[in-house]
């Protein structure tokens, strides 16, 4: 009898545990200046502040914090002091949704910046939209978030309160395909993704464009993001004869994956999207990562004249973590909320109206200003009108911009 009960326990625990990632969510109180009197407006931040993706998440949090501090210092909105409250979503949709509810329940929150992951974005949209609380994501690239599930055939905007400053995968994937095929002259690709909203979407749009251009897909594979052993996949890549690997996913898996593919003997570059565009990727992928490519939204922050000030201020503020891939976009996302609040306050004789949330959301649609990453404004779906993308390559242990441009279908 003992054996049988053991089997039952095994099955139950294994099934439960495989789907459960044992993490609670932790609140990390954001810090904002509380100088000046008048009304306090809280900008919520939802991002992975701990775990694998925390490098990107902390960059988002710090950049929003910087935007709020700048607005307070310059007294940008008369009579309003901005505060930042950051919640950790650990890249889990369930935590993201809880955080969204937390923001909704706090009346002072008039806008939310985040999240990082498209899958988390999906879980937050409805909660925030129901409360007419505006959300601006600096990093979500899944096309469905703004254009509906059937975005390829019929674009319908699902939520009026959702905006983003990041370009979508509908543009990023094809942009990468064009670069790989036309500029890098690679014709045989092995496509891998992690089955998440972001990764699978990116891989699909890349695949479509690459085929259209005349390239050949020599293999596809979906990895399990919970494991670190990709040796089997690496062997398949090696034997497929591919001359390039495209990975739709994020750096915690992309690093070891790239490393193991090269170690298996396939000395071919790995190409990915903005999810692998992070210094941690190079650290995890090791020295063989030289020549690996990533596309990311916008032009390189360091090269934009508009961003010089941001970079300088960020350094001056002395944040422990780098601003990362989305720093500029996060700053602009927060600033868009600040602009909207300013407009709402000015239209209401210098005071916040009672239905401030709805007003801010309404106003957001027409916000337009020159931000860190260029001109910031939103189209009828809530997508950024800035469609710039850049290809980066790993050289000497760093990401170096190779080519910037806009994708034209």
């Amino acid at each position: 009898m003992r054996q049988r009960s053991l089997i039952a326990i095994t099955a139950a625990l294994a099934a439960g545990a495989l789907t459960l990632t044992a993490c609670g969510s932790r609140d990390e109180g954001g810090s904002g200046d509380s100088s000046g009197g008048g009304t306090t407006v809280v900008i919520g931040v939802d991002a992975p502040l701990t775990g694998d993706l925390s490098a990107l998440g902390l960059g988002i949090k710090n950049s929003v914090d910087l935007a709020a501090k700048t607005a307070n210092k310059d007294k940008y909105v008369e009579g309003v002091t901005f505060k930042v409250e950051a919640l950790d979503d650990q890249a889990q949709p369930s935590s993201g949704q809880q955080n969204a509810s937390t923001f909704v329940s706090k009346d002072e929150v008039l806008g939310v910046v985040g999240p990082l992951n498209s899958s988390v974005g999906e879980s937050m949209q409805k909660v925030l939209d129901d409360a007419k609380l505006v959300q601006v994501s600096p990093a979500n690239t899944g096309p469905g978030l703004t254009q509906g599930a059937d975005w390829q055939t019929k674009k319908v905007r699902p939520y009026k309160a959702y905006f983003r400053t990041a370009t979508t995968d509908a543009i990023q994937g094809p942009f990468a395909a064009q670069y790989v095929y036309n500029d890098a002259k690679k014709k045989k690709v092995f496509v891998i993704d992690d089955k998440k909203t972001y990764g699978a979407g990116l891989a699909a749009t890349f695949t479509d464009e690459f085929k259209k251009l005349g390239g050949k897909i020599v293999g596809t594979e979906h990895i399990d993001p919970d494991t670190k052993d990709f040796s089997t996949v690496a062997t398949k890549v090696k034997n497929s004869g591919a001359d390039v690997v495209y990975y739709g996913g994020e750096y915690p898996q992309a690093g070891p994956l790239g490393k193991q593919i090269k170690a298996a003997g396939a000395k071919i570059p790995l190409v990915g999207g903005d999810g692998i565009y992070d210094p941690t990727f190079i650290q995890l992928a090791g020295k063989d990562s030289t020549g690996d490519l990533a596309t990311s939204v916008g032009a390189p922050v360091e090269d934009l004249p508009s961003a010089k000030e941001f970079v300088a201020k960020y350094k001056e503020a002395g944040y422990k973590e780098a601003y990362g891939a989305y720093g500029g976009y996060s700053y602009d996302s927060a600033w868009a909320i600040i602009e909207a609040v300013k407009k709402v306050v000015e239209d209401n004789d210098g005071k916040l109206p009672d239905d401030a949330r709805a007003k801010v959301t309404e106003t957001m649609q027409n916000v337009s200003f020159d931000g860190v990453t260029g001109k910031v404004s939103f189209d009828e779906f809530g997508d950024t009108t800035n469609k710039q993308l850049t290809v980066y390559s790993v050289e000497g242990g760093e990401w170096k911009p190779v080519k910037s441009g806009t994708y034209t279908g």
Partner: protein
Amino acid sequence: MNELPQQLVNGLLLGSMYGLVAIGYTMVYGIVQLINFAHGEIFMVGGFGALTVYLYALPDGTSMVIALPLMILGGVIASVLVAVGAERFAYRPLRGAPRLAPLITAIGLSLALQQAVWAWYPDARSAITFPHIDGGPFEIGGVTIQTGDIFLIIAAPLSMAILAYFVMKTRTGRGMQATAQDPDTAKLMGINTDRIIVVAFALGAAFAAVGAVAYGLKYGEVQFRMGFILGLKAFTAAVLGGIGNIYGAMLGGLVLGVAESLSTAYIADIPGMDQFGSQSWANVWAFVLLILVLLFRPQGLLGERVADRA
């Protein structure tokens, strides 16, 4: 080119690591009938113990030839301390309690250990780079073997041999066998069963630490959640091989590893199955195999029917 030899080697390497960790599950279960779900975290602590030695105890640039044995030692010490502490303070007070109480305690302990490393180990909030051995990879008859894997190839069979010798030949080892067969009679024969249980925890932890060093060398990183999925797989391996049987643990690990790698490599080639062949399905196939084995051999591959314990 024929992919099979390489995929088999990939699977065997992964399986050896499962096996090293599975030993801990199987020994503890064999002696106290406790599924020590914190064992995955004991494995993780071993990885961090080894890393600590490398980062903080050794001067920069120490050759791996010198560093590796010290790192293993550091990992083993960390794992054994945590395991023995867990036994003494979490499990021993519950020895007379119903079977589910220590099981839940183990799950709680597992979460606590994860969070403790997350909170207190410097920079442990994301993956930390583990030192690697220079050189390689090696080509043997069309099979590529990474430098980091060499350690696993040597350590896994060696650990198994040491364990077999210990259990079969030494006095303490025979005491363990006796305790596993019948704790009460063993006690009457003058065996200090409390001590035997501590030894079982410590040995399992030591092998888990060796596995953790292998993990670090193989994947180049350690992180606070690394023991969760791997511990689960190792436990599966222990059940597959016949829980309570130390050879079964290693065999179960190898079978599981090979099943995962072959299902990733070949299921997609079966016509109509390409939906179900990618690596994300490997876990599903591994558990299908587990269920099949348990249907026909409920005691596991090498397990024995223990009539007097039902």
